């Protein structure tokens, strides 16, 4: 023990430096208090709160809206499975949608008139989960040799091959001509609902009409989601979960720490695939049919968008992402709600871009003036540019006199304006300070024009544009997602 003050100070300094991370405020900004409070709630209580809210949902809405709830829950389940592979083990699996499809087709085949024998649900589900998991394990075998891009592309091929086989099953050389298991492009219809313990989980109501139609399936999905969340939470905290994260961070280092890398990869693929198979079987029963179009790239992107938006690697994040990704587009279907959503989203983006209320006010004012000028000149040049009507009752009164609602040549002009709007967005990203606001004004106007003239009537295209943009923007702005934790990759 030395009592020279210099030494003690040095030790203190070292500790001070070492602990500096702990002293730093984890959250900043106006959301900090809420997020600190969220951190103090234990995972069990978080799940309980979520389940309480989710269980109350069917009481509050009409029957058709319960269906949206089922979509959300199924997406959450399958996204949690994807999260095991991508978020935890760090393996970019682009063939994941095939496992979902495999589960769905498997269930549809054994629970419809495709085969003479119908399997009871209690037997079918375990077999489906086990088979899909096995398929996942098989697909993981190449991942012993392939990493990164190569693994991604190979799994993507797998998804394509799956789709082609399903579409053309009867034409396979070794299949007898009269056996059409998958129904080709027409899919399989008349899939029977699940039946557990003598209780049929069909699309009817519950408790003699107390709860609306579809609530049986809704609660079944909710129960499975809850079980899944608990299971995955425990798995993540276990040795296996730590091993996955280790091989995500640095496979070579993990191997040196005696983690059986190949077995862990195999396990991640198998667990992810099993979850996808289970969800697929549920999906087939809810849809009362399966069709090859459900298992294309589009659904793969939807799953990825859910995982990335919420925060890959975080269970609450993925569930939140699934809710956002599945629920928001449903709002787009109703032009009235979609209009609100669009303008609120635009306002939020505007604020994020300029970050000052006075600048926001200046921009909005300028956009308004810009619109009036455009309208004045285009009305002079070409009468028909102001002839059309805006898409929804409330907004149209506001918009009709301001934004150009085209009548003739609507499609052609909208295309050009769409390109202009995208160029505008690029300029906004590049520009700084006042130049940014100068670029924002026409961009906002063009975006509104495209929306009022076209996007509002094309919810499915809008949804695709949105998902693509979510992936690109999230990666650039916040790769860890809404609830994820930031990772640093050491190279």
């Amino acid at each position: 023990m030395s009592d020279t003050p210099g030494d003690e100070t040095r030790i203190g300094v070292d500790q001070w430096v070492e602990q500096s991370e702990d002293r730093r405020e984890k959250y900043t900004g106006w959301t900090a208090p809420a997020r600190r409070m969220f951190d103090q709630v234990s995972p069990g209580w978080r799940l309980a709160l979520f389940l309480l809210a989710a269980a109350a949902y069917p009481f509050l809405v009409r029957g058709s809206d319960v269906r949206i709830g089922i979509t959300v829950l199924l997406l959450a389940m399958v996204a949690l499975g994807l999260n095991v592979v991508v978020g935890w083990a760090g393996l970019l699996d682009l063939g994941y949608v095939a496992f979902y499809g495999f589960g769905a087709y498997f269930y549809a085949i054994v629970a419809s008139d495709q085969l003479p024998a119908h399997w009871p649900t209690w037997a079918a589900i375990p077999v489906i989960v086990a088979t899909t998991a096995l398929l996942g394990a098989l697909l993981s075998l190449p991942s012993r040799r392939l990493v990164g891009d190569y693994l991604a592309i190979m799994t993507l091929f797998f998804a394509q091959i799956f789709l082609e086989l399903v579409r053309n099953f009867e034409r396979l050389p070794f299949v007898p001509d009269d056996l059409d298991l998958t129904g080709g492009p027409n899919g399989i219809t008349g899939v029977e609902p699940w039946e557990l313990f003598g209780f049929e989980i069909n699309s009817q109501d519950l408790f003699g009409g107390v709860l609306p139609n579809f609530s049986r399936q809704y609660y079944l999905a909710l129960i499975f989601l809850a079980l899944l969340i608990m299971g995955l939470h425990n798995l993540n905290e276990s040795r296996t979960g730590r091993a996955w994260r280790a091989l995500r961070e640095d496979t070579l280092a993990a191997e040196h720490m005696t983690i059986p890398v190949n077995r862990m990869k195999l396990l991640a693929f198998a667990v992810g695939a099993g979850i996808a198979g289970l969800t697929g079987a549920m999906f087939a029963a809810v849809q009362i049919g399966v069709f090859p179009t459900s298992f294309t790239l589009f659904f793969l992107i939807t799953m990825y968008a859910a995982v990335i938006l919420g925060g890959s690697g975080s269970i609450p994040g993925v569930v939140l992402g699934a809710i956002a990704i599945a629920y928001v587009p449903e709002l787009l279907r109703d032009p009235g709600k979609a209009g609100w959503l669009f303008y609120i989203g635009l306002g939020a983006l505007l604020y994020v871009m300029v970050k000052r209320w006075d600048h926001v006010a200046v921009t909005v004012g300028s956009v308004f003036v810009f619109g009036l000028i455009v309208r004045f000149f285009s009305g002079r040049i070409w009468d028909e540019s102001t002839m059309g009507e805006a898409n929804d009752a409330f907004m149209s009164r506001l918009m009709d006199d301001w934004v150009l609602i085209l009548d003739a040549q609507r499609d052609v002009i909208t295309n050009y304006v769409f390109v202009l709007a995208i160029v505008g967005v690029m300029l906004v990203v590049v520009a700084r300070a006042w130049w940014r606001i100068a670029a924002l004004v026409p961009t906002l106007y063009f975006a509104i024009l495209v929306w009022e003239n076209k996007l509002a009537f094309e919810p499915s295209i809008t949804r695709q544009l949105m998902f693509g943009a979510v992936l690109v923007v999230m990666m650039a702005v916040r790769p860890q997602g809404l609830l994820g934790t930031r990772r640093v990759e050491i190279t």
Partner: protein
Amino acid sequence: MEFFLQQTVNGVTLGSVYALLALGYSMVYGVLKLLNFAHGEVYMFGAFAGYGVLTVLGGASALSVPVWLAIVLMFLAAMATSSAIGVALERFAYRPLREATRIAPLISAIGASFFLQASALLMFTANSRTYDTPQLIEIQTGIALGPIRVWMVRILVIVSAVVLMILLTLWVNRTRLGKAVRAVSFDREAAAMMGIDVDKVIVVVFLIGSALAGIGGVMVGLVFGRIFHLMGFVAGLKAFTAAVVGGIGSIPGAMLGGLLIGLAEAYTTGYISSTFQNVIVFGLLIAVLLVRPSGLLGRPELVKV
């Protein structure tokens, strides 16, 4: 024999287009170690740009300019559109992620690809278009090759692809900028330290790769006629296959790979089954990846820790 020759010509035509696309993948992978998933969409927009020019000029049956001029203009428009999209992709989807984790640019690329697909759906709708080339160039024209006759358009496609590849090889091997591209592919950091403007090199690579993809798009339109908003996805996958089979990062490898994939696809269609051609081609690729991950002409990558 006649059938075999016919399939070979088909395969070489298709292979030339795949090779042009594969060059884009390979060059981008060389400098950025990034799989540019959106490359197929760049090619699709090239095809639509060519179609747009054709329509503006009056359509295939009532052309207002000489045929050769129309085709040149189509190629130029496709090159301009595709390069603009390629450079924009690099600037906005990939450059912000250059120092990010390895998985991030891949996801961004998938997102960009999907966004471009949806944009095409919005702008061009889901209907497919046709170039109607037989109206432009009589299908009987061409040269006799033994028992079969090779259509003029196919010759045009094959010859121009070969010329482009020779020019590209010369450019990469003989010019200063080409040397810079090779240096950046070899080691980006070291190249930067030697005073090479890495950003500029990457932009040039995207520019050239995308222009080649645009040319490929117009070629497909000319030979096979039908273009639609989803055409980029499968073609992109196959071109990437070609790049991998040849050895990713290697320019002669991309050409060889493209040719091989084109021939494999043509023979599969001709002799085995047209329904399962994609399955067989993809299966072939998985086999190549497993047996020789570095491709036919690629060098195995050594990882230093």
